[in-house]
């Protein structure tokens, strides 16, 4: 089947029902996408599917065919950061960092839909993304910073 990930077309030979997460990680070696729970409870596997934040552990590969998949490594690169990533670096959000790919992808999708999210909106949208290290105060602050930056731009 054909998958477009981070702007690159791939041909993969997998079962239709293999979760997109495992196609990305094990077949395409895109390990910026993380496995945390496999049951839509942690958000570590969050990617964009045609611009919407989804849990890639819940998307069957067959359903991603023909869609544009964006992962953390496609969102921005160390020398060309996305505004959300830049805000994350500025606020020194990460501890172990394992949740942060998913947090950043979720936050980037949030800001696409709501350029000035309130704390209440942030609470609702970001609460599906678990951070076991407890970086929540910095996540909140970084989203506000990213929102301000994106408005300027």
């Amino acid at each position: 089947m054909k998958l477009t990930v981070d702007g690159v077309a791939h041909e993969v030979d997998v079962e239709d029902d293999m979760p997109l997460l495992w196609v990305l990680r094990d077949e395409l070696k895109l390990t910026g996408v993380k496995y945390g729970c496999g049951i839509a409870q942690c958000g570590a596997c969050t990617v964009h599917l045609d611009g919407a934040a989804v849990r890639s552990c819940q998307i069957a590969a067959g359903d991603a065919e023909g869609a544009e998949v964006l992962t953390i490594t496609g969102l921005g690169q160390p020398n060309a950061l996305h505004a959300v990533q830049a805000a994350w670096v500025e606020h020194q959000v990460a501890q172990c960092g394992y949740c942060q790919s998913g947090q950043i992808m979720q936050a980037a999708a949030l800001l696409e839909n709501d350029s000035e999210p309130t704390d209440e909106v942030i609470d609702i949208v970001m609460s599906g993304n678990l951070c076991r290290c407890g970086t929540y105060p910095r996540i909140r602050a970084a989203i506000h910073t990213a929102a301000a930056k994106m408005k300027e731009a």
Partner: protein
Amino acid sequence: MGRLKTLTRRAFLVGTAAVAGGVAFGVYTVRRPHENPLLGDLEPGQAALTPYVRIDGDGVTLITPRADKGQGAYHVQAVLLAEELDLDLAEVRVDPGPPSAAYWNTALAPEAAEFTIPAQGMMRDMVEGGLGAVMKVMGMQITGGSTTVADQFDKLRAAAASARETLKLAAADQTGVAVSDIRTENGAVILPDGRAIAYGDLAGAVAGMDVVQDVPLRAPAQWRYIGKPMQRIDMLGKCTGTLDYGIDLDVPGMLQATVVLNPAQGGALNRFDATEAEKMRGVKAVLPVTGGFAVVADNTWRAFQAAQMVVPDWGDTSNMPATMEGHWQALSDAFTDDQQDSRQRDDGDVDSALSGGKIIEAEYRAPYLAHAPLEPISAIVRVDDTTAEVWTGTQIPRFVQTNVARIAGIEADAVTLHVQMMGGSFGHRLEDEVVKQATEIAVQLKGVPIKLTYAREEDMTHDFPRQIAMARLRGKVTNGQVEAMDLSIACPSVIVSQMGRQGISMPGPDSQIVAGAWNAPFAIPHHRVTGYRAAPLAPISSWRSVGASHAGFFQNAALDELIFAAGADPLEERLRLVHDDLAQKVLEAVADMSSWDGPLGNGRGRGVALTTSFGVPCAEVIEVSQTEAGLKLDKVWVAAEVGRVVDPVNFENLVQGGVIFALGHAMNCEITYADGIAEQSNYHAYEGMRLYQCPDIMVRGLENGDQVRGIGEPPVPPAAAALAGAIFAATGTRLREMPFNKFVDFA
């Protein structure tokens, strides 16, 4: 190829070893009172310099055995190195030890010594009768993260300073310029005419020189990095998905595996039928491992799927009590003279003080808790006839090496270990079951690197959780003051359980049963803390802050009841009772930060707690309010005394994270067992804290003490009690058992 300098009676000295293409500098610690335990086994060419600094054509690399589980251990060490060696922080590379045995000899690493040498030395100390020594030993064995800064603050700077001065000397020799005219900057020696010689270009010359010893360390006023906000060296990688964790590693020819273990903790497997599983796409093998089976496939998900299709016949199950009532009963039964483990606090005359008058009594409970770091545990192991190679995130490299060697039937030094970045640990990676199982698989598939990834469900249900614990208070108040406090705490020994899995027996009292309670810095006239050791129940392991995670709650919650009975203010009475200067200052700090001024009223409440753990007094004030949706956590103020804050931003992040970790579990989490089977299998049943429940958390690091301390664990112990105090103030409901959501609703 290397050589070690003569040892003196100094606390530590700097040695060098020539390494391929350069030179290594490292600190050699002389452990007292034990004479250097490592030297006897040193072969020529082996240098016990860990962590050490390698300088070669590629620049400066810190080789460290200290695991980074997310707390910024690599970063903090890089800061200490950059400070004295005049490096740009961004240019420092950190390597947990490249594959060559010459670089990574765990048998000689201080990390290994912390586990093995003291364990032997402990027997001696025990015989000599020093409980203090035992505690010191245990502290070293189990603290992991909080020891990094404390341990390295002087050592790494000393190594870097010696390296700097030796490099200058080498440059002076080469150029004929007086060493006093030479300075260093940005990874290079600078000559008076402005010419720069990169450190790497001097490495060859330095390798043959005597090291300049006893270089005075720079004064705080000269520091460029320490104490200043800076960017963590792993931040960019972690925000761009470009940093690999152990679970992300790809070794050529590797196969993916997963295991399913007897659902009952510690249970056995009789046999399994893999007929259906073996027919599934991508499945390479279904193999037995201790207590279960493994599926090996070409894709992790395929291994997960096929594992569901294997039909196991489980054998003997766990011998823990069938119900949680049974577990609690075992603790309740442990409060006997026979099972008394320690009485490290016995001030005044508790028995007479409590022989009459109104006695306040209460009982407290702390449940089992999973570690559940977000990265499920994994390990890659390749075994052949004489060697093995291991890639995994671990805090116990020496045990890993030994266990892999034993299972593979090879020599320990034929095991090469590549320590990987960890997506959290909280103590989880002080265990190595995953490596042992990966080795069992790899032995059956020789030559093939096997990556074993636990499904979250296996990770959570087969975790060795935080100990279950119970406490009983008897106390008395007089004239508006706390007069007597008799606190008894019972739990199984976490150290015995944990070390037992490594074949090490731990005689003597377990100070973790009462950690944070026996040493509570309060001068209560009649004050006794007694530890009782319950029989082993579920196998347990160190969980962030270890014993203080339950005892800090018990001590503060019990003190709160007495203070309430005395009609006193929780913060003022603690301030009146506190007898330790540093602890007093952290209490004063949270009083100031929160503008503490008695009850708030209107459905709002504040609580306060103070626990000294890992040498760090940490006080917290928490404010909650009642809302229609339930109790809302509004604000937390934290102050901790750490001697020196190396990186204020990382410090704040770690403290906030510690508070959130503690509160999330105190509010929402427990692991319960039915017939030995953990009933919580994934985050839906074990949520911790999510963002919507997270309060604002204000942090202050105090630097009054002269000991530099780590901050990974100390913010955990006071949090639950401060929250319980706040809930009592807001609602009148006294919470004596975690998780609190069994008794109150949170918004």
